[in-house]
């Protein structure tokens, strides 16, 4: 599989990134090198192998549903690029 420039532009859109044309060219080469290497996994027949999503066999980690103190609003907002009246400010959406 080889990734094309238009695919890179599509993936960049999904990832909320933008690149100028010279960057895209460089990325295209590097990503194809990396994906070319990754394709060696196709050598292995894994049709009967269960996937691993977690290194340990832990299942749901439940805890009691208890009310505990949490960070106050002003601390939670202390790193926000823009805030107003105890809320995050974002550009107008509608």
């Amino acid at each position, binding site marked *: *599989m080889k*990734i094309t420039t238009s*695919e*890179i532009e*599509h*993936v*960049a859109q*999904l*990832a*909320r*990134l*933008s*690149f100028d044309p010279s960057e895209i060219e460089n*990325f295209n080469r*590097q*990503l194809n*090198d*990396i*994906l070319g*290497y*990754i*394709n*060696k*996994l*196709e050598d*292995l027949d*894994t049709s009967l*192998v*269960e*996937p*691993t*999503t*977690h*290194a*340990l066999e*832990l299942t749901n*980690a439940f*805890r009691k549903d208890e009310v505990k103190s949490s*960070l106050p609003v002003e*601390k*939670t907002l*202390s*790193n*926000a*690029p*823009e805030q107003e009246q105890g809320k*995050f400010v*974002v*550009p*107008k*959406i509608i």
Partner: protein
Amino acid sequence: MPSLIDLSIHELHDILSRRDVSAVEVTMAYLDRIGEVDPKIRAYLTVTPDKALTQAEEADKCLKKADDITPLTGIPMGIKDVICTRGVKTTCGSKILENFVPPYNATVMEKLEAHGAVMLGKLNMDEFAMGSSTENSAYYPTHNPWDLERIPGGSSGGSAASVAARACAGSLGSDTGGSVRQPASYCGVVGLKPTYGTVSRFGLVAFASSLDQIGPISRDVTDCALLLNAISGHDTRDSTSVPKDVPDYTASLISGLKNYTLGIPREYFIPGLDPEVEKAVKYAVAALESQGAEVVEVSLPHTEYAVATYYIIAPAEASSNLSRYDGVKYGLRAPDYKNLMDMYKKTRSLGFGPEVKRRIMIGTYSLSAGYYDAYYKKASQVRTLITQDFKNAFEKCDVIAAPVAPTTAFRLGEKADDPLQMYLSDIFTIPVNLAGIPGISVPCGLSSSGLPIGLQLMAGHFEETKLLTVAYNLELALGRCESWPLD
């Protein structure tokens, strides 16, 4: 008498608890040392002298009353800048978090503070822990104290370089594909990646959540055990933290390896392995044999697929984890934008460096519609095969011994333009993360040009005690490092 910065954590503890020296004096000695060597190695991103001295004064109160003393009381530590420290900037080596001041502490920081440790500052790293050389830091590269023209390894390059340069007594790093063990090997110090779930990830900025673990870096194996004692344990704030009692890891520091079988994986001795590294590793294995271990050959047949597997799984998880940097809740927001989508794109394109963008792109691509089965599912299946390799090998041996990295520390800039070559330098450390098992790097010699070489030891899940026993015996057989760099 050796100077204070030459002492290991346990040696410092002895003289602190005898009150031969105060914690403030020890902290001052380290702050002076940072002033002296850090302009050369650039291991620190932030130094916190006021906080350190306040913590040292508190430690002195405990030491004076002989009350509430732990092995870490008054011990000056450095912390990788990916671990949240309340009130102290935590940048992850990224411009996107340049001004991020966490309003809370990571669990490991709560634990270190409860043990009376002193924090000297925050240590440099590859941006978001993505890299093997610390050259991907958005601020500046760190230099290897053994040869300033070489990289210290990565991504925990600042954590390893500062311990080797005696600019802290011990440090914490994080290891997703070798980021504690590889720099420890390149800098001639001890670095441990614990079993997945042993150390809480709460407050560790996420890179690849199914692989990340925090681990200690120290100048000897005893210090490693002491630090592991302090940071391990179940934490309800990390749902992958394992509800298991923490043993006293110092109990595993015993001489003799009778009844120990050491496995040597044939797939780790491949073309491309530096002959000097191979020689040092074989010498270390012989030293462990002289301590009583039996040596057998084992096979980990899927080793050659580990890097490819990792470079699907880790970027996939990263692309998801890093979607939180959107210019809304914290971190950078680009100054000019037309609408919300434009703000997202400009913020992320401005804030992330090239390697982080590369991995977000690989991860997004491999998870995108139509490719999931070919990439992510396939990699998760190969991950099972790699894990199974280890299970089979541990039926024949207690601990596996192998190189940490194929070469010694490379030159700054040597691999910077070739991401794939950089990825391949992690070939021997990645399998441990995929399987979730513990691994340690222990110094086992110097190359002819005076660069450190590490031996990697690997064991089954929760067998850190076995790792530490073998590592301790290697230290006994080879002797501890007597001459540190930048003297």
